[in-house]
C-alpha cells in the first residue's frame, strides 16, 4: 500500500465509451466479485459561496484520491480522474474502483473525491469512503 501514495496515475475514464460497450439488457447487474468496488457519489449542487451550481454544466471532472489511512491533504496525489458528464451530458455519479487494480492499487483503502470546475477550481476533499478487501 505504501506505493499508492507514490502513484500519480492520471486515469481518465471516458464513461461514454464504457457505456457503449455494455449491451446488457437485463435488469440484474452482474455480481460483484471480491467485495463491492463501485464508488458512487452525489454531484455538488452549489458553489462554495452557496450559489447554485449545475453539475452538468459547471463540473469538468472529479479527481480521485486513494490513501490507506484516509488522511488526505495538499500532498495527496490524484490517482484517477472521472469526467463530470457522460456522452449524453448527464452527470457521472459512479466509478468502478476495480479498474485501479491494473495499476497495482488494491483494497483496503480509503477513497476521496474533489470536484473540479470548468475553470479548474477544485473543491475540498469529500468525506472519504472505505473500500475493504
Amino acid at each position, binding site marked *: 500500500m505504501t506505493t499508492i501514495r507514490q502513484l500519480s496515475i492520471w486515469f481518465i475514464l471516458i464513461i461514454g465509451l464504457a457505456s457503449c460497450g455494455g449491451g446488457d439488457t437485463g435488469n440484474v447487474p452482474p455480481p460483484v466479485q471480491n467485495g*463491492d*468496488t*463501485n*464508488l*458512487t*457519489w*452525489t*454531484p*455538488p*449542487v*452549489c*458553489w*462554495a*459561496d*452557496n*450559489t447554485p*451550481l449545475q453539475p452538468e454544466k*459547471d*463540473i469538468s471532472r*472529479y479527481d480521485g484520491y486513494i490513501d490507506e489511512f484516509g488522511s488526505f491533504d495538499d500532498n495527496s496525489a490524484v490517482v484517477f480522474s472521472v469526467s463530470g458528464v457522460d456522452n449524453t451530458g448527464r452527470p457521472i455519479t459512479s466509478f468502478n*474502483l476495480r479498474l485501479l487494480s491494473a495499476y497495482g492499487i488494491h483494497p483496503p483503502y480509503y*477513497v*476521496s*473525491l*474533489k*470536484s*473540479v*470546475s470548468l*475553470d*479548474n*477550481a*477544485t*473543491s*475540498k*476533499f*469529500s*468525506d*472519504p*469512503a*472505505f*473500500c475493504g478487501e
Partner: protein
Amino acid sequence: MKNFRLLSGIFTVLFVLLCYSYGQAETLAWNAPTTYTDGSAIGTAAVTYTARWSTSLSLTNPHTLASAISGLSTTFNVDTEGMVRGSTIYFGVYATVATANSADGTLLWVVSYKVPTAPGNLRIQ
C-alpha cells in the same frame, strides 16, 4: 504645517483570502502606517482609510470598496463588485490624517474563480 504625507513605503497592503468561508467573501487587509514621511511618529492621531480597486495599475476610474473607515480591513463580494473572475485587478488603499492623504498602498490580484463544493454521500456498493 507638518508634512502629513504618510510614508507610503511602510504602508503596505496585505491581502487575505478568507479560505475558510471559501469564496463567500474576500477580505482586503492592510497594515497601519506608524510614521509620517518625515519619520516622525503618527502617534495617537486619528487615521482613516479608503480602499479602492481598478482594472488599471494607475487606479483610473476606481471602484470604492470602503471610504474613510478606521479599521484595517474591508470585506467584499467579487460578483457584487463586478470583478471579472480570472482577470487581473489592482487594489489601492490610502490613509488620511486630518485632510492629508498618503500615497496608495497597492496590490495586484487575479480574481479567484468560483470554487465548487465537494461531491457528497460517497458510497462503495
